[in-house]
């Protein structure tokens, strides 16, 4: 309190002036009232001071504030009224608890001195007081006006209490009320806002009190308008009269609620100082990080330093006056200016001393220093808010010669960008500055800018208060963390090392080393992938960058991509922004490997030379003679390897070149016919001329016209919308086997689209039996439906062409999947999508030549199925998770083991037909049997399309079944060929028998149907399983 009083005393001088002014004003009733009131409130204060002096008990902060408030101006008047009223006694008596509540105080004052403006009756009494107090007041006014003026004064009195020292809470008390003057918005000349405000000020001074406006506000961000504060609109109009640049035709009132918004500009004030990180908003450098070097507030400009994006060649052309290319197709990548290089290109470089005393290299008006471009731009063209430089950017910025201090500067910027609540209780932190540097500890408590930490050093028991600017989060190797901001936001990983405030972590998804600021990391057990897409570009997309380069996106940061460029000699990774990407390359290119084998996407290749020699994996992209191979054992670049197609060799045969292994001779012919440079894509080979021109039969032509075997969709004509497989091509017409109708139709070639979505819709199981009868149908293999169309042609002939020496090809093709399989990593098969559609597996299946191998090999897989037909169920069962776990004792030759685990997803769509189809070429209908089991309800088809319900009693060795007719199987027993049998599809709550998979033979109850899946409660185990409906047959004795 003593300090307080000192302050009051010290403030007396300016107050005295004010007081004088008040006395002058006293001639005006209103002003006088004002003054009177001030005197009153001043006295009030005085009284409280007095109490403080005497009692010194209620010395709380609130009082301090109040007193300070009054130090400003009211203080001058406080002694006088106190003396004059002579009401010390009352004051003393009444003031015991008054200072706590302003309202109460008012009321009290009403009682004692101040008549309470809202009660006019008392006004007379108050006036009497006033007469005593202010003897020179002789102007009488009528009561009404007086009342009004008092009300006005009273309305303000509560506010005037607060002044400059108010806190935020008290600011609320200053909110405008209805009694306050209003704000009016008035149009003015654009760019003349300040001028108008100043001119009105001048006018107000010249005219004295004539001008009744209170203030004029010109906002920087609001062009063409000013606000005028006045009680009445008429006052505004009056003030605007005769003013240049003010268009007062329309004067609009600002609603009270919006009045504070007008004056709330603090948030817009930005602190731009040296070394602040900013981003450029416009031009070539849009989005680039820049560092403020100098700020010129007067001109509203800043000098920033940037990493130049300068095309020296273009610059040289320009400077020499040669023709400048107008097209600004691409923005040069950021690169430090190399003065020597510029000189070599005969670009004139001047070394000049700048006003600041530093030397700059001046090239064509641009200033460079240490490789950086120093650019002076308008403040408006930089963005300063929420600039979070990424680690890479800062790293780059630091590059030439800027050592520790740059680091420090960036650190301080980073810290200043910290959000509130950056540290939380329990965070592990390390002191990075000051005497306690490197002290580790745990956050105990967080205050505004101070963090209390408990040091981890045993000797230090107490918590220490440290400025948050000196702290940094601390992690230890082995911590699992999540990146919460910055370019790798969202990624998770494990900390492998910590360098100061930089944490190195291995990302969970990409297995890459990420360098991030400790500030941007929190401990977390979460595992996420982070960002995989910006705009239309996604991770692993092949994109074209500028005219020359292209690459695969191997990482997606929050604002940029990392692209593995298509440069085969060495892995080259570029960081590119969205705008630097010209487009995505969707086209699935073809190419030839070293041995002129056709390569297509998804083919497995091995790199024969170059830095990645020996690596192998499926081809992900082919473009301009470059392949991008995905090798999951390759830990760099997200597993991507870039190689020349000529450096690769196809492993296991290409789908796109089905003849190669199957018929080496035709393959050679094909190569002779096909220009080696032109990749043989299906469409292209078509355009090149129908294969029929070779005069071969339609079968022979198949291998060459890629369209044959392709899944197509009919776009026009009576079969519009139908999907099917191309069976044959004759001239411009195509014979398509419709999927849904089991018939072959002839359509015009132009009426089909061959890029259909390969998922085949669910089909009635009843079709399956029928399907096997269609002679053309057998050519389908169960795996085909989910292959890309272009791959199919290779596969198709295999079936039909069983007569060609299949074996050699089959074994070849098997090798890649087998290799991997034998690594004992079945799970990876299921999980790595690259392998799923991979062709070799299906061929592996086909590998057994008809007759001999067929019956023996597959059966080995399933001990419970003694016949090869069980494969049918195996196929159908592919999605079952149990299958992959069974391969253990498989003979290495069992092909089915290779593909089953790899075929989830697509397979279940057409399992039944697949199962039947693939049987057909082998043993015809008589291999159908094992699919069936005793006791299931079936429909037996008679010759004349009638069907009779029956129950399978027994499955005979040749595959035929003995079926008891009738729904309970009590009728005649007949021997039926399995092709004539159709399983009765169970309905919900039917008893069922599982026809395939590891639980083949088990019975259960169908408790629900979900699309193609049936939810089955197995009787024995009471487990609930989700099985493909195709595997379920209705049990006869249900």
């Amino acid at each position, binding site marked *: 309190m003593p300090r307080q009083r000192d302050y009051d005393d010290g403030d007396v001088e300016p107050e005295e002036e004010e007081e004088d002014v008040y006395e002058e004003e006293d001639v005006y009733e209103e002003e006088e009232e004002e003054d009177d009131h001030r005197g009153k409130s001043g006295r009030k204060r005085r009284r409280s001071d007095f109490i403080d002096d005497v009692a010194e008990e209620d010395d709380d902060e609130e009082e301090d504030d109040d007193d300070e408030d009054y130090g400003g101006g009211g203080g001058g008047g406080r002694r006088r009224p106190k003396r004059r009223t002579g009401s010390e006694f009352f004051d003393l008596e009444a003031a015991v608890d008054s200072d706590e509540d302003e309202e109460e105080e008012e009321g009290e004052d009403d009682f004692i001195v101040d008549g309470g403006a809202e009660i006019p009756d008392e006004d007379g009494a108050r006036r009497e007081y006033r007469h005593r107090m202010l003897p020179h007041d002789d102007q009488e006014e009528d009561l009404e006006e007086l009342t009004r003026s008092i009300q006005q004064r009273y309305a303000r009195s509560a506010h005037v209490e607060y002044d400059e020292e*108010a806190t935020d809470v008290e*600011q609320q008390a200053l909110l405008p009320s209805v009694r306050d*003057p209003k704000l009016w918005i008035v149009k003015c000349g654009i760019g003349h806002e300040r001028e108008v405000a100043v001119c009105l000020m001048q006018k107000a001074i010249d005219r*004295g009190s004539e*001008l009744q406006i*209170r203030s004029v506000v010109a906002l920087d961000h609001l062009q063409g308008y000013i606000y005028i504060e006045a009680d009445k609109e008429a006052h505004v109009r009056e003030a605007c009269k005769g003013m240049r640049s003010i268009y007062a035709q329309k004067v609009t009132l600002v609603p009270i609620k919006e009045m504070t918004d007008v*004056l709330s*500009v603090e948030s817009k004030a930005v*602190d731009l100082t040296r070394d602040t990180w900013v981003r450029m908003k416009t031009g070539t450098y849009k989005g680039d990080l820049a560092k403020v070097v100098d700020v010129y507030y007067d001109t509203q400009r800043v000098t920033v330093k940037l990493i130049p994006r300068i095309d020296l060649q273009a610059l040289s052309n320009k400077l020499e006056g040669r023709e400048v290319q107008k097209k600004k197709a691409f923005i040069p990548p950021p690169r430090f200016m190399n003065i020597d290089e510029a000189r070599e290109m005969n670009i004139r470089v001047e070394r000049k001393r700048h006003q600041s005393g530093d030397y700059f290299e001046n090239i064509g008006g641009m200033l460079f220093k240490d490789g950086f471009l120093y650019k002076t731009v308008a403040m408006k063209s930089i963005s300063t808010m929420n600039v979070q430089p990424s680690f890479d950017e800062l790293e780059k910025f630091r590059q030439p010669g800027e050592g520790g201090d740059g680091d420090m500067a960036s650190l301080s910027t980073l810290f200043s960008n910290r959000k509130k609540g950056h540290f939380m209780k329990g965070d592990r932190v390390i002191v990075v500055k000051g005497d306690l540097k490197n002290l580790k500890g745990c956050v105990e408590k967080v205050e505004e800018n101070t963090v209390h930490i408990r040091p981890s050093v045993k000797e230090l028991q107490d918590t220490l208060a440290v400025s948050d600017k000196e702290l940094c989060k601390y992690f230890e190797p082995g911590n699992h963390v999540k990146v919460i901001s910055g370019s790798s936001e969202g990624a998770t990983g494990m900390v492998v090392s910590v360098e100061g405030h930089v944490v190195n972590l291995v990302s969970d998804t990409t297995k890459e080393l990420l360098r991030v600021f400790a500030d941007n990391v929190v401990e977390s057990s979460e595992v996420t992938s982070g960002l995989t897409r910006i705009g239309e570009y996604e991770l692993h997309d092949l994109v074209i960058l500028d005219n020359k380069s292209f690459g695969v996106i191997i990482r997606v940061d929050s604002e940029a991509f990392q692209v593995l460029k298509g440069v085969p000699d060495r892995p080259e990774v570029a960081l590119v922004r969205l705008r630097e990407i010209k487009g995505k390359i969707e086209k699935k290119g073809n190419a030839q490997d070293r041995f002129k084998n056709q390569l297509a996407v998804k083919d497995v290749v091995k790199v024969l030379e170059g830095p990645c020699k020996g690596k192998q994996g499926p081809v992900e992209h082919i473009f301009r003679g470059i392949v991008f191979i995905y090798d999951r054992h390759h830990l760099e670049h997200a597993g991507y390897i870039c190689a020349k197609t000529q450096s690769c060799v196809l492993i296991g045969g290409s789908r796109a070149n089905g003849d190669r292994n199957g018929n080496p001779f035709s393959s050679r012919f094909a190569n002779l016919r096909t220009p080696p440079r032109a990749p043989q894509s299906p469409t292209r080979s078509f355009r090149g001329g129908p294969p029929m021109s070779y005069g071969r039969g339609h079968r022979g032509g198949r291998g060459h016209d890629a369209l044959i075997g392709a899944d197509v969709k009919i776009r026009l004509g009576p079969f519009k919308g139908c999907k099917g497989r191309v069976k044959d091509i004759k001239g411009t017409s195509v014979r398509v086997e419709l999927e849904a109708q089991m018939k072959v139709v002839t359509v015009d070639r132009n009426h089909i689209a061959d890029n259909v979505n390969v998922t085949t819709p669910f089909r009635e199981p009843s079709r399956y039996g029928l399907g096997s009868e269609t002679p053309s149908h057998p050519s389908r293999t169960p795996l085909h439906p989910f292959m890309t169309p272009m791959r199919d042609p290779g596969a198709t002939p295999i079936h039909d062409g069983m007569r060609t020496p299949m074996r050699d090809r089959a074994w070849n093709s098997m090798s890649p999947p087998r290799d991997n399989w034998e690594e004992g990593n079945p799970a990876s098969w299921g999980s790595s999508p690259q392998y799923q559609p991979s062709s070799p597996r299906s061929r592996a299946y086909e590998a057994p030549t008809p007759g001999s191998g067929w019956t023996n090999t597959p059966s080995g897989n399933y001990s419970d199925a003694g016949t090869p037909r069980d494969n049918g169920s195996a196929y159908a069962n592919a999605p079952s998770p149990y299958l992959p776990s069974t391969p253990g004792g498989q003979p290495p030759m069992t092909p089915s083991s290779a593909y089953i685990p790899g075929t989830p997803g697509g397979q279940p769509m057409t399992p039944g037909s697949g199962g039947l189809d693939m049987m057909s070429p082998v043993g015809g209908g008589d291999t159908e049997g094992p699919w069936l089991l005793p006791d299931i309800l079936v429909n037996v088809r008679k010759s004349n399309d009638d069907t009779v319900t029956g129950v399978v009693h027994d499955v005979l060795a040749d595959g035929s079944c003995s079926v008891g007719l009738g729904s309970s199987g009590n009728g005649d027993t007949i021997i039926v060929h399995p092709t004539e049998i159709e399983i009765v599809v169970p309905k919900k709550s039917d008893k069922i028998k599982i026809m395939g998979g590891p639980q083949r033979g088990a019975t259960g109850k169908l408790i629900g149907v979900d699309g193609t899946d049936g939810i089955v409660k197995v009787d024995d185990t009471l487990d609930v399983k989700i099985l493909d409906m195709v595997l379920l047959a209705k049990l006869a004795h249900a």
Partner: protein
Amino acid sequence: MGSQQAAQIPTSFGHELRACLRCRLVKTYDQFRESGCENCPFFKMDEDYERVGDCTTSNFTGLISVMDPTRSWAARWLRIARSVPGCYTLAVSEALPEDLQNLCQDERIPYNPPKRI
């Protein structure tokens, strides 16, 4: 009007305008140099030209001409109700240098740093 002697009114409206870091009065650099700040005479800007640079800034936002500070809501809201009439700014974006803050303290003049800093 006329209740108080008004401060000098800026003679221009351009970039040479500066605002007092304590009271936010806006004048031109020359005006500050010649006659100091009407609200903050203790800065003695008119005696020491270098003080002008220290005590004022060109980094401010918005302009308000206050004709009648005691009766203006805007002035009260901006806490310049006790300042002399004149042209002020809505907000300055810099804080007073520390030595001058100390000076304020010595003179027992309240100083409120801008909120953003």
